[in-house]
Protein backbone atom coordinates (compact mmCIF):
# COMPACT_ATOMS: atom_id res chain seq x y z
CA UNK A 1 0.00 0.00 0.00
CA UNK A 2 1.29 3.40 -0.93
CA UNK A 3 0.15 6.35 1.15
CA UNK A 4 0.46 10.03 0.29
CA UNK A 5 0.35 12.37 3.29
CA UNK A 6 -0.13 16.06 2.63
CA UNK A 7 1.95 18.13 5.03
CA UNK A 8 0.53 21.23 6.67
CA UNK A 9 2.90 24.12 7.18
CA UNK A 10 3.38 27.87 6.87
CA UNK A 11 6.36 27.62 4.48
CA UNK A 12 8.81 27.69 7.36
CA UNK A 13 7.48 25.24 9.92
CA UNK A 14 5.73 21.91 9.78
CA UNK A 15 2.45 22.05 11.72
CA UNK A 16 2.21 19.48 14.53
CA UNK A 17 -1.11 18.19 13.10
CA UNK A 18 0.93 16.59 10.31
CA UNK A 19 2.63 14.36 12.88
CA UNK A 20 -0.70 13.02 14.13
CA UNK A 21 -1.82 12.32 10.59
CA UNK A 22 1.54 10.61 9.95
CA UNK A 23 0.74 8.09 12.68
CA UNK A 24 -2.55 7.26 10.96
CA UNK A 25 -0.80 7.07 7.58
CA UNK A 26 1.84 4.65 8.88
CA UNK A 27 -0.93 2.21 9.86
CA UNK A 28 -1.88 1.94 6.19
CA UNK A 29 1.41 1.40 4.38
CA UNK A 30 4.53 3.05 3.06
CA UNK A 31 4.24 6.81 3.52
CA UNK A 32 5.35 9.58 1.17
CA UNK A 33 4.90 13.14 2.40
CA UNK A 34 4.05 15.97 0.02
CA UNK A 35 5.27 19.44 0.96
CA UNK A 36 3.76 22.02 -1.38
CA UNK A 37 4.67 25.63 -0.71
CA UNK A 38 7.09 28.38 -1.52
CA UNK A 39 10.65 28.55 -0.22
CA UNK A 40 9.74 25.67 2.03
CA UNK A 41 12.86 23.49 1.96
CA UNK A 42 13.07 23.65 5.76
CA UNK A 43 9.62 22.11 5.95
CA UNK A 44 10.67 19.29 3.64
CA UNK A 45 13.64 18.67 5.90
CA UNK A 46 11.41 18.57 8.98
CA UNK A 47 9.10 16.13 7.20
CA UNK A 48 11.98 13.89 6.16
CA UNK A 49 12.79 12.99 9.76
CA UNK A 50 9.26 11.89 10.70
CA UNK A 51 9.54 8.28 11.81
CA UNK A 52 8.14 5.86 9.23
CA UNK A 53 8.37 8.22 6.25
CA UNK A 54 10.07 6.76 3.19
CA UNK A 55 10.15 9.78 0.91
CA UNK A 56 9.35 13.47 0.75
CA UNK A 57 8.03 15.15 -2.39
CA UNK A 58 8.78 18.85 -2.49
CA UNK A 59 6.75 21.13 -4.76
CA UNK A 60 8.34 24.51 -4.27
CA UNK A 61 6.74 27.24 -6.38
CA UNK A 62 5.07 30.61 -6.04
CA UNK A 63 1.65 29.17 -6.90
CA UNK A 64 1.75 27.02 -3.75
CA UNK A 65 2.70 29.82 -1.35
CA UNK A 66 -0.77 30.18 0.17
CA UNK A 67 -1.89 26.58 -0.15
CA UNK A 68 -4.76 27.42 -2.51
CA UNK A 69 -6.82 24.27 -3.12
CA UNK A 70 -7.34 25.28 -6.77
CA UNK A 71 -3.58 24.87 -7.34
CA UNK A 72 -2.61 22.14 -4.87
CA UNK A 73 -5.42 19.73 -5.85
CA UNK A 74 -4.29 19.21 -9.47
CA UNK A 75 -0.71 18.82 -8.27
CA UNK A 76 -1.76 16.03 -5.90
CA UNK A 77 -3.84 14.35 -8.59
CA UNK A 78 -0.78 14.25 -10.82
CA UNK A 79 1.10 12.31 -8.14
CA UNK A 80 -1.42 9.58 -7.47
CA UNK A 81 -0.08 6.91 -9.79
CA UNK A 82 -0.12 3.73 -7.66
CA UNK A 83 -1.19 5.68 -4.57
CA UNK A 84 -3.84 3.82 -2.55
CA UNK A 85 -4.51 6.37 0.21
CA UNK A 86 -4.32 10.16 0.42
CA UNK A 87 -4.35 11.66 3.90
CA UNK A 88 -4.26 15.08 5.51
CA UNK A 89 -5.07 16.30 9.00
CA UNK A 90 -8.69 17.44 9.43
CA UNK A 91 -7.68 21.06 9.93
CA UNK A 92 -9.28 23.92 7.98
CA UNK A 93 -6.47 23.44 5.46
CA UNK A 94 -7.15 19.71 5.04
CA UNK A 95 -10.91 20.23 5.01
CA UNK A 96 -10.58 22.81 2.26
CA UNK A 97 -8.24 20.80 0.08
CA UNK A 98 -9.02 17.08 0.38
CA UNK A 99 -12.58 17.02 -1.01
CA UNK A 100 -11.36 18.93 -4.07
CA UNK A 101 -8.77 16.20 -4.64
CA UNK A 102 -11.29 13.42 -4.06
CA UNK A 103 -13.78 14.83 -6.56
CA UNK A 104 -11.08 15.31 -9.21
CA UNK A 105 -10.21 11.63 -8.73
CA UNK A 106 -13.92 10.71 -8.84
CA UNK A 107 -13.81 9.13 -5.38
CA UNK A 108 -15.54 9.86 -2.09
CA UNK A 109 -13.84 11.08 1.06
CA UNK A 110 -14.00 9.93 4.65
CA UNK A 111 -13.81 12.90 7.01
CA UNK A 112 -12.46 12.97 10.56
CA UNK A 113 -11.19 9.40 10.75
CA UNK A 114 -10.65 8.39 14.39
CA UNK A 115 -9.78 4.73 13.89
CA UNK A 116 -8.38 2.61 11.09
CA UNK A 117 -9.97 -0.83 11.01
CA UNK A 118 -8.37 -1.98 7.77
CA UNK A 119 -7.22 -0.75 4.37
CA UNK A 120 -10.76 0.26 3.41
CA UNK A 121 -12.62 0.42 6.72
CA UNK A 122 -12.63 3.41 9.03
CA UNK A 123 -14.46 4.81 12.04
CA UNK A 124 -15.62 8.39 12.12
CA UNK A 125 -17.94 10.45 14.34
CA UNK A 126 -21.26 11.69 12.94
CA UNK A 127 -24.04 13.82 14.46
CA UNK A 128 -21.64 15.93 16.53
CA UNK A 129 -19.95 12.82 17.86
CA UNK A 130 -23.17 11.38 19.23
CA UNK A 131 -22.70 8.33 17.03
CA UNK A 132 -19.71 6.56 15.57
CA UNK A 133 -20.00 5.28 12.03
CA UNK A 134 -17.91 2.40 10.77
CA UNK A 135 -17.69 2.80 7.00
CA UNK A 136 -16.14 0.80 4.21
CA UNK A 137 -15.18 2.66 1.08
CA UNK A 138 -15.63 1.02 -2.28
CA UNK A 139 -13.32 3.48 -4.05
CA UNK A 140 -9.92 2.52 -5.51
CA UNK A 141 -8.19 5.51 -3.88
CA UNK A 142 -9.10 6.23 -0.28
CA UNK A 143 -9.11 9.90 0.64
CA UNK A 144 -9.11 10.45 4.40
CA UNK A 145 -8.98 13.44 6.69
CA UNK A 146 -7.58 12.52 10.08
CA UNK A 147 -8.90 13.78 13.40
CA UNK A 148 -5.62 14.68 15.06
CA UNK A 149 -6.78 14.12 18.65
CA UNK A 150 -7.37 10.44 17.87
CA UNK A 151 -3.77 9.67 16.89
CA UNK A 152 -0.55 10.31 18.82
CA UNK A 153 2.05 12.49 17.16
CA UNK A 154 4.66 10.52 15.21
CA UNK A 155 8.15 10.77 16.66
CA UNK A 156 11.10 12.10 14.74
CA UNK A 157 14.31 10.21 14.05
CA UNK A 158 17.90 11.14 13.27
CA UNK A 159 18.04 9.85 9.68
CA UNK A 160 16.61 11.74 6.73
CA UNK A 161 14.29 10.30 4.09
CA UNK A 162 15.18 11.39 0.55
CA UNK A 163 13.60 14.58 -0.76
CA UNK A 164 12.49 14.58 -4.39
CA UNK A 165 11.41 17.70 -6.27
CA UNK A 166 8.07 17.62 -8.11
CA UNK A 167 5.84 20.00 -10.03
CA UNK A 168 4.78 22.62 -10.44
CA UNK A 169 1.45 21.70 -11.95
CA UNK A 170 -1.19 24.00 -13.42
CA UNK A 171 -2.37 27.13 -11.61
CA UNK A 172 -5.80 28.73 -11.55
CA UNK A 173 -6.12 32.32 -12.72
CA UNK A 174 -9.54 32.63 -11.10
CA UNK A 175 -8.45 32.78 -7.49
CA UNK A 176 -6.12 35.26 -5.85
CA UNK A 177 -4.87 35.39 -2.31
CA UNK A 178 -5.55 38.79 -0.75
CA UNK A 179 -4.54 38.67 2.89
CA UNK A 180 -4.39 36.70 6.08
CA UNK A 181 -4.99 38.06 9.56
CA UNK A 182 -3.60 35.59 12.04
CA UNK A 183 -4.28 35.75 15.74
CA UNK A 184 -0.96 36.35 17.43
CA UNK A 185 -0.56 34.46 20.65
CA UNK A 186 2.26 33.31 22.86
CA UNK A 187 0.08 30.51 24.15
CA UNK A 188 0.35 26.90 23.02
CA UNK A 189 -1.70 25.92 20.00
CA UNK A 190 -5.27 25.07 20.99
CA UNK A 191 -5.43 21.63 19.41
CA UNK A 192 -2.06 20.52 20.81
CA UNK A 193 -2.18 22.12 24.27
CA UNK A 194 -1.94 20.03 27.45
CA UNK A 195 -4.36 22.37 29.20
CA UNK A 196 -7.27 24.30 27.69
CA UNK A 197 -9.32 26.89 29.56
CA UNK A 198 -12.49 27.84 27.69
CA UNK A 199 -14.98 30.59 28.36
CA UNK A 200 -18.58 30.95 27.32
CA UNK A 201 -21.39 33.46 27.30
CA UNK A 202 -21.23 33.52 31.09
CA UNK A 203 -18.14 35.74 30.87
CA UNK A 204 -20.48 38.48 29.63
CA UNK A 205 -17.83 40.75 28.07
CA UNK A 206 -14.53 40.83 26.29
CA UNK A 207 -12.90 42.49 29.34
CA UNK A 208 -14.09 39.72 31.62
CA UNK A 209 -12.75 37.15 29.18
CA UNK A 210 -9.28 38.18 30.36
CA UNK A 211 -10.02 36.13 33.48
CA UNK A 212 -10.09 33.03 31.30
CA UNK A 213 -6.87 34.07 29.58
CA UNK A 214 -5.20 34.75 32.93
CA UNK A 215 -6.08 31.30 34.25
CA UNK A 216 -4.92 29.69 31.00
CA UNK A 217 -1.58 31.48 31.26
CA UNK A 218 -1.07 30.41 34.86
CA UNK A 219 -1.69 26.80 33.82
CA UNK A 220 0.45 27.10 30.69
CA UNK A 221 -2.62 26.38 28.62
CA UNK A 222 -4.44 27.51 25.52
CA UNK A 223 -7.63 29.55 25.44
CA UNK A 224 -10.83 28.15 23.98
CA UNK A 225 -14.34 29.51 23.66
CA UNK A 226 -17.90 28.48 22.99
CA UNK A 227 -19.64 29.66 19.86
CA UNK A 228 -21.66 32.13 21.93
CA UNK A 229 -18.46 33.70 23.27
CA UNK A 230 -17.01 34.00 19.76
CA UNK A 231 -20.24 35.32 18.26
CA UNK A 232 -20.36 37.95 21.02
CA UNK A 233 -16.83 39.04 20.21
CA UNK A 234 -15.25 37.95 23.52
CA UNK A 235 -12.76 35.69 21.73
CA UNK A 236 -11.47 35.30 18.15
CA UNK A 237 -13.10 32.80 15.80
CA UNK A 238 -10.17 30.40 15.82
CA UNK A 239 -10.79 29.77 19.55
CA UNK A 240 -14.16 28.09 18.94
CA UNK A 241 -14.27 24.56 20.29
CA UNK A 242 -16.98 22.24 19.03
CA UNK A 243 -18.72 20.36 16.25
CA UNK A 244 -18.03 23.12 13.79
CA UNK A 245 -14.93 24.58 15.40
CA UNK A 246 -11.84 22.87 16.73
CA UNK A 247 -11.70 19.48 18.37
CA UNK A 248 -9.46 19.29 21.41
CA UNK A 249 -8.53 16.50 23.80
CA UNK A 250 -6.14 17.96 26.38
CA UNK A 251 -5.13 16.45 29.73
CA UNK A 252 -7.20 19.14 31.40
CA UNK A 253 -10.17 21.06 29.98
CA UNK A 254 -11.72 23.80 32.09
CA UNK A 255 -15.13 25.07 30.91
CA UNK A 256 -16.15 28.35 32.51
CA UNK A 257 -19.61 29.83 31.99
CA UNK A 258 -20.38 27.29 29.26
CA UNK A 259 -23.70 25.45 29.34
CA UNK A 260 -22.53 22.34 27.49
CA UNK A 261 -24.63 22.24 24.32
CA UNK A 262 -24.04 19.07 22.26
CA UNK A 263 -22.27 21.16 19.64
CA UNK A 264 -19.75 22.27 22.25
CA UNK A 265 -19.36 18.83 23.84
CA UNK A 266 -18.52 17.44 20.38
CA UNK A 267 -15.28 19.37 20.50
CA UNK A 268 -14.04 18.56 24.00
CA UNK A 269 -15.62 15.46 25.47
CA UNK A 270 -12.57 13.31 24.78
CA UNK A 271 -10.47 15.46 27.11
CA UNK A 272 -8.86 13.45 29.89
CA UNK A 273 -10.05 15.52 32.83
CA UNK A 274 -12.94 17.98 32.47
CA UNK A 275 -13.68 20.74 34.95
CA UNK A 276 -16.89 22.75 34.76
CA UNK A 277 -17.60 26.00 36.56
CA UNK A 278 -21.15 27.21 36.18
CA UNK A 279 -23.67 28.86 38.48
CA UNK A 280 -26.50 26.70 37.18
CA UNK A 281 -26.32 23.26 38.78
CA UNK A 282 -28.45 21.84 35.98
CA UNK A 283 -26.14 22.91 33.18
CA UNK A 284 -25.52 19.88 30.92
CA UNK A 285 -21.76 20.46 31.06
CA UNK A 286 -21.80 18.86 34.53
CA UNK A 287 -22.86 15.55 32.96
CA UNK A 288 -19.46 15.21 31.31
CA UNK A 289 -17.39 16.94 33.99
CA UNK A 290 -15.04 15.03 36.28
CA UNK A 291 -15.04 17.96 38.68
CA UNK A 292 -17.94 20.36 38.86
CA UNK A 293 -18.09 23.60 40.78
CA UNK A 294 -21.48 25.31 41.07
CA UNK A 295 -20.56 28.89 41.71
CA UNK A 296 -20.58 32.34 40.17
CA UNK A 297 -17.56 32.44 37.91
CA UNK A 298 -16.76 35.96 39.06
CA UNK A 299 -16.17 34.51 42.51
CA UNK A 300 -14.54 31.24 41.44
CA UNK A 301 -12.16 32.49 38.75
CA UNK A 302 -10.41 35.17 40.86
CA UNK A 303 -10.01 32.59 43.64
CA UNK A 304 -8.50 30.06 41.25
CA UNK A 305 -6.23 32.70 39.77
CA UNK A 306 -5.08 33.63 43.26
CA UNK A 307 -4.39 29.99 44.15
CA UNK A 308 -2.20 29.53 41.11
CA UNK A 309 -0.49 32.90 41.46
CA UNK A 310 0.50 31.71 44.93
CA UNK A 311 1.81 28.51 43.46
CA UNK A 312 3.83 30.23 40.74
CA UNK A 313 5.26 32.93 43.03
Amino acid sequence: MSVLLIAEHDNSQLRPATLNAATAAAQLGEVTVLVAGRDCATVAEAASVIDGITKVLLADAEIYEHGLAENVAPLVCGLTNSVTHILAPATTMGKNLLPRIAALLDVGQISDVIEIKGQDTFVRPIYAGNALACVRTLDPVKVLSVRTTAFDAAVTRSSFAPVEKVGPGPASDRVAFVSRQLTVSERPELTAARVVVSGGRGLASQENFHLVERLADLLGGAVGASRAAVDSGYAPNDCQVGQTGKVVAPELYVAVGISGAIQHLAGMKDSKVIVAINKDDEAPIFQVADYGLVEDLFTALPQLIEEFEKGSA
Partner: protein
Amino acid sequence: MKILAAVKRVVDYNVRIRVASDESGVETNGVKMSMNPFDEIAVEAGVQLKEAGIAAELVVVSIGPAACQETLKTALAMGADRALLVETEVEVQPLAAATAIKAIVEREAPDLVLLGKQAIDDDSNQTGQMLAALLDWPQGTFASGLNIADGKATVTREIDGGLETLLLTLPAVVSTDLRLNTPRYATLPNIMKAKKKPIERSTPEELGIDIRPRQKMLSVSEPPVRTGGVMVASAAELVDKLRNAAKVIP
Protein backbone atom coordinates in the same frame (compact mmCIF):
# COMPACT_ATOMS: atom_id res chain seq x y z
CA MET B 1 -26.72 37.74 -11.54
CA LYS B 2 -28.22 34.44 -10.52
CA ILE B 3 -27.53 32.50 -7.33
CA LEU B 4 -28.09 28.83 -6.54
CA ALA B 5 -28.18 27.71 -2.89
CA ALA B 6 -28.12 24.07 -1.78
CA VAL B 7 -30.25 23.12 1.21
CA LYS B 8 -30.18 19.79 3.01
CA ARG B 9 -32.89 18.35 5.22
CA VAL B 10 -31.34 17.09 8.44
CA VAL B 11 -32.33 16.07 11.97
CA ASP B 12 -32.95 19.33 13.84
CA TYR B 13 -29.90 20.53 15.74
CA ASN B 14 -31.79 20.53 19.03
CA VAL B 15 -32.69 16.84 18.85
CA ARG B 16 -30.75 14.45 21.05
CA ILE B 17 -30.18 11.69 18.55
CA ARG B 18 -30.43 8.00 19.41
CA VAL B 19 -28.51 5.20 17.80
CA ALA B 20 -30.79 2.41 16.55
CA SER B 21 -30.48 -0.72 18.69
CA ASP B 22 -29.51 -2.86 15.67
CA GLU B 23 -26.66 -0.42 14.96
CA SER B 24 -27.99 0.22 11.44
CA GLY B 25 -28.09 3.98 11.86
CA VAL B 26 -29.66 6.77 13.83
CA GLU B 27 -33.37 6.82 14.78
CA THR B 28 -35.17 9.24 12.47
CA ASN B 29 -38.74 8.02 12.94
CA GLY B 30 -40.85 10.80 14.40
CA VAL B 31 -37.79 12.99 14.85
CA LYS B 32 -37.99 16.71 14.06
CA MET B 33 -36.28 17.56 10.78
CA SER B 34 -35.11 21.01 9.71
CA MET B 35 -32.96 22.81 7.20
CA ASN B 36 -29.27 22.33 7.94
CA PRO B 37 -28.36 25.47 9.97
CA PHE B 38 -25.44 26.34 7.69
CA ASP B 39 -27.79 26.22 4.70
CA GLU B 40 -30.06 28.76 6.38
CA ILE B 41 -27.01 31.00 6.41
CA ALA B 42 -26.43 30.28 2.71
CA VAL B 43 -30.05 31.11 1.84
CA GLU B 44 -29.88 34.27 3.96
CA ALA B 45 -26.72 35.34 2.12
CA GLY B 46 -28.50 34.83 -1.19
CA VAL B 47 -31.57 36.78 -0.07
CA GLN B 48 -29.38 39.64 1.17
CA LEU B 49 -27.63 39.81 -2.21
CA LYS B 50 -31.04 40.04 -3.85
CA GLU B 51 -32.14 42.77 -1.46
CA ALA B 52 -28.95 44.67 -2.21
CA GLY B 53 -29.81 44.56 -5.90
CA ILE B 54 -26.74 42.47 -6.69
CA ALA B 55 -28.58 39.26 -7.48
CA ALA B 56 -31.68 39.04 -9.65
CA GLU B 57 -32.74 35.53 -8.79
CA LEU B 58 -32.17 33.02 -6.00
CA VAL B 59 -32.87 29.37 -6.81
CA VAL B 60 -32.64 26.66 -4.15
CA VAL B 61 -31.99 22.97 -4.64
CA SER B 62 -32.25 19.92 -2.41
CA ILE B 63 -31.40 16.31 -3.13
CA GLY B 64 -33.26 13.62 -1.23
CA PRO B 65 -36.71 12.18 -0.58
CA ALA B 66 -40.02 13.95 -1.29
CA ALA B 67 -40.02 15.32 2.27
CA CYS B 68 -37.21 17.71 1.25
CA GLN B 69 -39.99 19.86 -0.21
CA GLU B 70 -40.60 21.05 3.35
CA THR B 71 -37.02 22.30 3.51
CA LEU B 72 -37.37 23.93 0.11
CA LYS B 73 -40.57 25.64 1.25
CA THR B 74 -38.70 27.10 4.20
CA ALA B 75 -36.11 28.50 1.79
CA LEU B 76 -38.85 29.92 -0.42
CA ALA B 77 -40.44 31.54 2.63
CA MET B 78 -37.09 33.09 3.51
CA GLY B 79 -37.02 34.74 0.10
CA ALA B 80 -35.82 32.30 -2.56
CA ASP B 81 -37.64 32.59 -5.89
CA ARG B 82 -37.77 29.02 -7.13
CA ALA B 83 -36.96 25.58 -5.83
CA LEU B 84 -35.70 22.37 -7.37
CA LEU B 85 -35.94 18.91 -5.87
CA VAL B 86 -33.76 16.10 -7.15
CA GLU B 87 -35.77 13.24 -5.77
CA THR B 88 -34.19 10.02 -4.59
CA GLU B 89 -34.67 7.50 -1.83
CA VAL B 90 -31.02 6.48 -1.98
CA GLU B 91 -28.64 7.80 0.72
CA VAL B 92 -27.02 10.93 -0.74
CA GLN B 93 -23.31 11.14 0.07
CA PRO B 94 -21.30 14.33 -0.56
CA LEU B 95 -19.90 13.30 -3.97
CA ALA B 96 -23.43 12.37 -5.04
CA ALA B 97 -24.81 15.70 -3.81
CA ALA B 98 -22.03 17.53 -5.65
CA THR B 99 -22.73 15.54 -8.82
CA ALA B 100 -26.43 16.39 -8.67
CA ILE B 101 -25.80 20.07 -7.94
CA LYS B 102 -23.37 20.16 -10.86
CA ALA B 103 -26.12 18.85 -13.17
CA ILE B 104 -28.42 21.60 -11.89
CA VAL B 105 -25.69 24.21 -12.38
CA GLU B 106 -25.36 23.13 -15.99
CA ARG B 107 -29.08 23.75 -16.51
CA GLU B 108 -29.46 26.91 -14.48
CA ALA B 109 -26.10 28.58 -15.15
CA PRO B 110 -25.82 30.49 -11.86
CA ASP B 111 -22.92 32.89 -11.23
CA LEU B 112 -22.56 31.83 -7.62
CA VAL B 113 -23.39 28.64 -5.74
CA LEU B 114 -23.83 28.93 -1.98
CA LEU B 115 -23.69 25.88 0.28
CA GLY B 116 -23.33 25.31 3.99
CA LYS B 117 -19.81 24.45 5.08
CA GLN B 118 -21.02 21.29 6.77
CA ALA B 119 -24.16 19.22 7.15
CA ILE B 120 -24.74 18.60 10.85
CA ASP B 121 -25.83 15.00 10.32
CA ASP B 122 -22.91 13.49 8.41
CA ASP B 123 -20.50 16.28 9.50
CA SER B 124 -18.63 15.73 6.21
CA ASN B 125 -17.68 19.25 5.16
CA GLN B 126 -17.06 18.13 1.56
CA THR B 127 -19.86 18.94 -0.86
CA GLY B 128 -18.94 22.54 -1.73
CA GLN B 129 -15.29 21.71 -2.36
CA MET B 130 -16.29 18.69 -4.48
CA LEU B 131 -18.74 20.76 -6.50
CA ALA B 132 -16.06 23.40 -7.16
CA ALA B 133 -13.70 20.64 -8.36
CA LEU B 134 -16.30 19.07 -10.66
CA LEU B 135 -17.11 22.47 -12.19
CA ASP B 136 -13.47 23.59 -12.23
CA TRP B 137 -14.57 26.74 -10.38
CA PRO B 138 -12.73 28.56 -7.59
CA GLN B 139 -13.91 27.95 -4.03
CA GLY B 140 -14.32 30.14 -0.98
CA THR B 141 -14.96 27.80 1.93
CA PHE B 142 -15.96 28.61 5.54
CA ALA B 143 -16.96 32.14 4.59
CA SER B 144 -17.58 34.70 7.30
CA GLY B 145 -17.57 37.58 4.84
CA LEU B 146 -18.81 37.83 1.25
CA ASN B 147 -18.69 40.81 -1.08
CA ILE B 148 -19.65 40.76 -4.74
CA ALA B 149 -18.46 43.42 -7.17
CA ASP B 150 -17.30 43.58 -10.79
CA GLY B 151 -17.78 39.88 -11.44
CA LYS B 152 -15.65 38.94 -8.45
CA ALA B 153 -16.34 37.66 -4.97
CA THR B 154 -14.21 38.74 -2.03
CA VAL B 155 -14.48 35.98 0.52
CA THR B 156 -13.24 36.15 4.10
CA ARG B 157 -12.64 32.65 5.40
CA GLU B 158 -12.45 31.33 8.97
CA ILE B 159 -9.23 29.34 9.16
CA ASP B 160 -7.42 27.68 12.06
CA GLY B 161 -5.10 30.60 12.70
CA GLY B 162 -7.58 33.42 12.17
CA LEU B 163 -9.00 34.83 8.95
CA GLU B 164 -8.00 34.71 5.30
CA THR B 165 -9.31 36.73 2.37
CA LEU B 166 -9.47 35.45 -1.22
CA LEU B 167 -10.62 37.08 -4.43
CA LEU B 168 -12.57 34.70 -6.67
CA THR B 169 -13.55 35.32 -10.26
CA LEU B 170 -17.19 34.35 -10.78
CA PRO B 171 -18.68 31.86 -11.30
CA ALA B 172 -17.57 30.43 -7.96
CA VAL B 173 -18.62 28.21 -5.07
CA VAL B 174 -18.85 29.65 -1.57
CA SER B 175 -19.55 27.65 1.59
CA THR B 176 -20.90 29.49 4.60
CA ASP B 177 -19.64 29.56 8.18
CA LEU B 178 -21.62 30.51 11.27
CA ARG B 179 -20.64 34.14 11.41
CA LEU B 180 -21.53 35.17 7.85
CA ASN B 181 -24.98 36.38 8.93
CA THR B 182 -27.95 35.65 11.16
CA PRO B 183 -30.66 33.94 9.13
CA ARG B 184 -34.11 35.48 9.26
CA TYR B 185 -37.17 33.57 10.39
CA ALA B 186 -39.79 32.87 7.78
CA THR B 187 -42.80 35.03 8.70
CA LEU B 188 -46.34 33.70 8.38
CA PRO B 189 -47.27 35.93 5.40
CA ASN B 190 -44.10 34.82 3.64
CA ILE B 191 -44.82 31.19 4.39
CA MET B 192 -48.26 31.71 2.80
CA LYS B 193 -46.72 33.44 -0.21
CA ALA B 194 -44.14 30.68 -0.57
CA LYS B 195 -46.91 28.16 -1.10
CA LYS B 196 -47.47 29.70 -4.53
CA LYS B 197 -43.83 29.54 -5.53
CA PRO B 198 -42.91 26.61 -7.78
CA ILE B 199 -41.02 23.49 -6.74
CA GLU B 200 -39.76 21.67 -9.81
CA ARG B 201 -39.04 17.98 -9.40
CA SER B 202 -36.59 15.81 -11.27
CA THR B 203 -34.77 12.55 -10.64
CA PRO B 204 -31.12 11.49 -10.98
CA GLU B 205 -32.20 9.31 -13.91
CA GLU B 206 -33.72 12.29 -15.70
CA LEU B 207 -30.56 14.27 -15.06
CA GLY B 208 -28.50 11.34 -16.34
CA ILE B 209 -26.29 11.14 -13.27
CA ASP B 210 -25.01 8.33 -11.09
CA ILE B 211 -25.41 9.09 -7.41
CA ARG B 212 -24.78 5.67 -5.94
CA PRO B 213 -23.06 5.73 -2.53
CA ARG B 214 -19.31 5.18 -2.60
CA GLN B 215 -19.22 4.15 1.00
CA LYS B 216 -21.03 1.40 2.82
CA MET B 217 -22.12 2.03 6.38
CA LEU B 218 -21.17 -1.15 8.24
CA SER B 219 -22.47 -0.07 11.64
CA VAL B 220 -23.38 2.94 13.73
CA SER B 221 -22.62 2.69 17.41
CA GLU B 222 -22.85 4.75 20.58
CA PRO B 223 -19.69 6.57 21.53
CA PRO B 224 -18.23 5.68 24.94
CA VAL B 225 -20.08 7.61 27.64
CA ARG B 226 -18.26 9.61 30.26
CA THR B 227 -19.05 8.55 33.77
CA GLY B 228 -20.31 11.35 35.98
CA GLY B 229 -17.71 12.97 38.18
CA VAL B 230 -17.81 14.64 41.56
CA MET B 231 -18.94 18.06 42.67
CA VAL B 232 -16.58 20.23 44.66
CA ALA B 233 -17.64 22.93 47.08
CA SER B 234 -15.02 25.58 46.47
CA ALA B 235 -12.19 26.78 44.24
CA ALA B 236 -9.72 25.62 46.89
CA GLU B 237 -11.15 22.11 46.88
CA LEU B 238 -11.02 22.07 43.09
CA VAL B 239 -7.33 22.97 43.09
CA ASP B 240 -6.66 20.27 45.69
CA LYS B 241 -8.46 17.65 43.59
CA LEU B 242 -6.66 18.63 40.39
CA ARG B 243 -3.30 18.49 42.16
CA ASN B 244 -3.68 15.45 44.33
CA ALA B 245 -6.40 13.23 42.88
CA ALA B 246 -6.31 13.89 39.13
CA LYS B 247 -2.65 14.97 39.19
CA VAL B 248 -3.09 17.10 36.08
CA ILE B 249 -1.46 20.21 37.51
CA PRO B 250 1.74 20.62 39.47
